[in-house]
């Protein structure tokens, strides 16, 4: 049993071990009610990480996800009174558009994705500030419940956020495993030059990957703003780091090609368990960012495929 054979299984083993440790320390953690609310709370982050998976899967990164989510919290709040439920459509289209622009700049203008998405994120941030008038906005409670109440209600004791996340996960899983797009994505992630040589339209596939990332970041922002009943240009700040951590800890390496959306589910759950464990072990909340930063470095170092990087720049 070599390390390489265990490696694909490490994420879920890690998750189980963590759950066992935290559960062993405090059995309250394992109560179904607690686990369910923990999963429901992490859903906006999960949806963002789901999108980020596609950007990382093709060997890129999407640093605009947080700004796009911020922007959609504002769009959702501003558009709700006039458009009602159609505000969701505006949000999704906006996210898709921003993602496509990132993809276009990366593939056609040959700007590395960490710069192109950083720049597009700057545009999204400006737009959010313009739309919000640089203030925190609040949704009218009746309007919110009328249009988006279904997102945050409860059925059979399970919060609806989990259904939203679940449906998106299944849709993305379908896209990844059952469509030609999914196959092509794998080809691009495994080796871009080979994919080009075998006649794939790599540009289109990469643009679509970034578009999906933008769209899901937008849905994450929408769900988050409905949850908190408001929007602001900084509401989703603090999402970017755990979203990247979730993807990498789940086992999709920075070099792309392996892993996928189910890995990201496991990665997000690991993030969620670590977060609540800090509560149970009474670790100061101010430690959190530092801990996740260190976990990020460890996760990258463990998963990255160094044979793909002849020179590490």
């Amino acid at each position: 049993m070599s390390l390489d054979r265990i490696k694909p299984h490490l994420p879920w083993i890690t998750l189980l071990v963590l759950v066992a440790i935290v559960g062993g320390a405090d059995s309250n953690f394992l109560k179904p009610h607690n686990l369910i609310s923990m999963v429901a709370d992490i859903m906006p982050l999960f949806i963002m990480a789901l999108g980020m998976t596609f950007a990382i899967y093709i060997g890129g990164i999407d640093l605009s996800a947080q700004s796009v989510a911020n922007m959609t919290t504002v769009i959702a709040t501003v558009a709700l009174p006039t458009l009602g439920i159609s505000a969701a459509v505006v949000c999704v289209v906006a996210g898709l558009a921003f993602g496509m622009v990132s993809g276009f700049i990366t593939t056609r203008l040959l700007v590395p994705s960490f710069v192109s998405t950083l720049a597009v994120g700057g545009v999204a941030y400006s737009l959010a500030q313009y739309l919000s008038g640089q203030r925190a906005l609040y949704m009218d409670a009746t309007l919110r419940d009328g249009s988006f109440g279904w997102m945050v209600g409860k059925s059979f004791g399970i919060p609806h956020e989990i259904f939203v996340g679940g449906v998106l996960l299944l849709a993305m899983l379908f896209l990844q495993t059952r469509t030609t797009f999914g196959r092509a994505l794998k080809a691009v992630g495994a080796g871009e030059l080979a994919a080009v040589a075998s006649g794939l339209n790599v540009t289109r596939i990469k643009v679509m990957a970034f578009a999906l990332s933008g769209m899901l970041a937008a849905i994450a922002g929408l769900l988050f703003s409905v949850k908190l009943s408001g929007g602001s240009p900084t509401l989703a700040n603090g999402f970017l780091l755990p979203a990247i951590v979730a993807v990498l800890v789940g086992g999709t390496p920075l070099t792309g090609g392996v892993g996928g959306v189910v890995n990201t589910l496991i990665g997000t759950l690991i993030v969620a368990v670590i977060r609540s464990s800090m509560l149970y072990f009474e670790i100061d909340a101010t430690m959190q960012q530092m801990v996740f930063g260190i976990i990020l470095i460890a996760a990258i170092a463990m998963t990255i495929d160094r044979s793909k990087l002849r020179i590490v720049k």
Partner: protein
Amino acid sequence: MNGILKREALVKWAPLIVLLVLILLFTVLEPRFFSVRNLARIAISSTPALMVALGVTFIIIMGSIDLSMEGTVSVTAVVFAFAFLALGGTVLSWAWLALPLAILVGAVVGFINGLVHVKLRIPSFMASLAMGFVGTGFALLLTGGDRIRVEDEVFRGLLTERWLGFPVMVYVAALFLLIGWFIQAKTTLGRNFYAVGGGEELAHASGLNVNRVRILGFTLAGMFYAVGALMAVGRIGIAETATGNNFMFMSITSVVVGGTALWGGIGGVWNTLVGVLIVNVIGNGMVVIGLPGYVQDAVLGLLVIVAVVLSTDRKSISFVK
């Protein structure tokens, strides 16, 4: 041959021309833009950004990238403020030791950054992004979210004391700019940065210890971030977790807009000076002619993309990630 020469000349001088055109444009639209008062304002806002951008210039010349500046600036600012207050709270006491201490802390953070990148073989953009998060997290841990006030009049003299209409910090920044130029042009380390950026395999084949150059580069960058942090604290008199905010976007934009290519090997500290001035002239000018300040991020975003596109020789690369 002639075509290549023209292209190179254009890329070389374009940033300076853009800067002059911008200054002219804003002055025509609003003559007050070109007053000493306003120029001093631009200089003040440029100063911390210039220090941070100088640091990352060396990294970009090597063809790597450093996204850790926000964390490094916050950590060094906070450590400096704590040490400064603990040692007496005025530059005239032993508290002056906090100044070199801050630069040492910056060097240590940069050194760790370089180690993570080189020894764990993680691409620098991700290694440094993660280190930046750790840095911000560490600053948050130290402060617990509080702001630390540094009210020593001598230290704040960086901002309040003016020579010829410009505060002292501008002259200090000019000194560090010269130090940066000296390192770039007159030392072996500086030439090695260009060697690594121009072609790593060639540099390696000719016997250069590339890993050592990289780690030294990140250490040096960390020291410049620390100087930037000191300027930032001197400017507002407060050190906090948010001291480093916005430095990442600002400094990367400045370096790239100044004409240092993301692919490495081209550009230098003078380009960065021009780039920082372009960014700050735009930021200031838009406010002076009455545009809302938040347009700035969008304009900078577009600017950085244009700059990268212009500086890319499209024939020499096949794809980017």
